[in-house]
C-alpha cells in the first residue's frame, strides 16, 4: 500500500519535473536560439521556473516528498507573475501601470503559436499544472 502511493507520488513529481525542464529549455530556446530578449517579467518567471527543474530532479532521485514544501512557493509566485503578465498582454492592466517601460516592453507580443498561445500563457499553464500536481502529492501525504 505504501509502495503504491509512493509510486503515484513519484509519477506526479516526474510530470512536474517534465514540465519544469521543458519550460526551462523552451525559455532558453526563445532567448538563446531565437534571440528574443526576455522582458523583466519573463526574467522573474524564469527565476521561479529554473529552480523547479533542479528541485524536482533532486526530489525524484530518490523520491523525497518533502520537496513539495520547497517547490510550492516557487510555483505559486511564478504563477502569480505569469497571471499578471497575461493580464498585461490582454490589456486588462493599463499601460501606465506596467513595470517595464525601458528596455524590452513586457506588453510586446513577440511570439504567438497557433494564433493565441503566447509565452506568458505557456508559463501560466506550466505553473498551473505544477501547482495542481503538487497539491495532489500533498493530499496523498496527508491521507
Amino acid at each position, binding site marked *: 500500500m505504501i509502495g503504491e502511493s509512493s509510486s503515484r507520488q513519484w509519477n506526479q513529481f*516526474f510530470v512536474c519535473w*517534465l514540465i519544469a*525542464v521543458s519550460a526551462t529549455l523552451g525559455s*532558453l*530556446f526563445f532567448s538563446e*536560439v531565437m534571440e528574443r530578449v526576455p522582458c523583466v517579467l519573463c526574467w522573474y518567471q524564469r527565476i521561479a521556473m529554473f529552480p523547479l527543474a533542479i528541485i524536482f*530532479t533532486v526530489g*525524484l*532521485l*530518490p523520491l523525497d516528498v518533502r520537496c513539495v514544501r520547497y517547490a510550492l512557493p516557487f510555483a505559486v509566485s511564478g504563477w502569480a507573475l505569469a497571471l499578471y503578465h497575461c493580464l498585461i498582454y490582454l490589456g486588462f492592466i493599463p499601460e501606465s501601470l506596467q513595470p517595464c517601460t525601458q528596455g524590452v516592453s513586457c506588453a510586446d507580443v513577440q511570439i504567438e503559436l497557433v494564433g493565441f498561445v503566447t509565452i506568458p500563457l505557456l508559463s501560466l499553464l506550466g505553473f498551473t499544472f505544477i501547482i495542481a500536481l503538487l497539491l495532489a502529492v500533498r493530499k496523498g501525504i496527508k491521507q
Partner: protein
Amino acid sequence: MKKPILVAGATIVMLGAFVVGKNIYKDQQADKVSQIAATDKDSPFNRQDAPMIGTIMAKVEIVEFFDPACEACRGFHPYVKSVLNAHRSQVRLSLRYATLHKGSDYVAQVLEAARMQGLDIYLASLEAVLEGQPVWAEHGRPQPELVWTLLTSTGLDIERARREMNDPRILARLKQDAADMVKLDVRKTPTLFINGKPLRDFSPEGLTSQVANEIRIAYKS
C-alpha cells in the same frame, strides 16, 4: 530501479529536441536570408558603396555588421583579418555599421569620413578606433569625441574629417545599413554572412571552416 534510467532518458530526449529545434530554426533563418540574397533586387548583399577590404575579383564575400563600440566586434576583428590574409585573392570583406551602442553612430561617421581620404587611412583609423575602444566606448558613459585623439597618428586629416563627417552620403550610407539590419534581422554584433549565408557557429573556428567551405564551392573547377 528503472527510475533513474527514465529520468536520464527523458533528459536526453528533451535536450535532443532542443538541439534538433535549434538546427531547424537556424536552417529556416538561413533559407530566409538566402531567399533575400537571391531574389531581392535591392539586396543587402550588394552594396557597392560600403567599405570593402580585399579585391573585387574575390568570389567569396564576408559581410560583417559591426559596432565600433562593441567589445565582441573588437575581439573578433583579428580573426576576420587573419581569414582575409590567409585567402587574399579569394575572400573580401564588406563592412556594415550596426550602431547599437550610444555614441557609436558618431564614430561610424568619423570612420566614413576617414574612408573619403583613402582606404589605407580608413583601415588605420578602424584599427585605432577598435584598439582604443576602452577609451571612448565606456558603457553608460561613452565619449565618442575622444576618438579624435586616437586618430592623430593615422595620417588622417582631422580638420577635413570633422568637416565631412556629416556629409549626406555618409548619413545615407548609415541609414542604408540600419535598413539592411532590419531586412536581415540583425540583432547582435558582430553578425557575419558568408556569401549570403549566416555564420552558423560564431567562433574563430566556425568562421575559418565556413569560409573554407565557401571557397571550395566558389572555386571548384
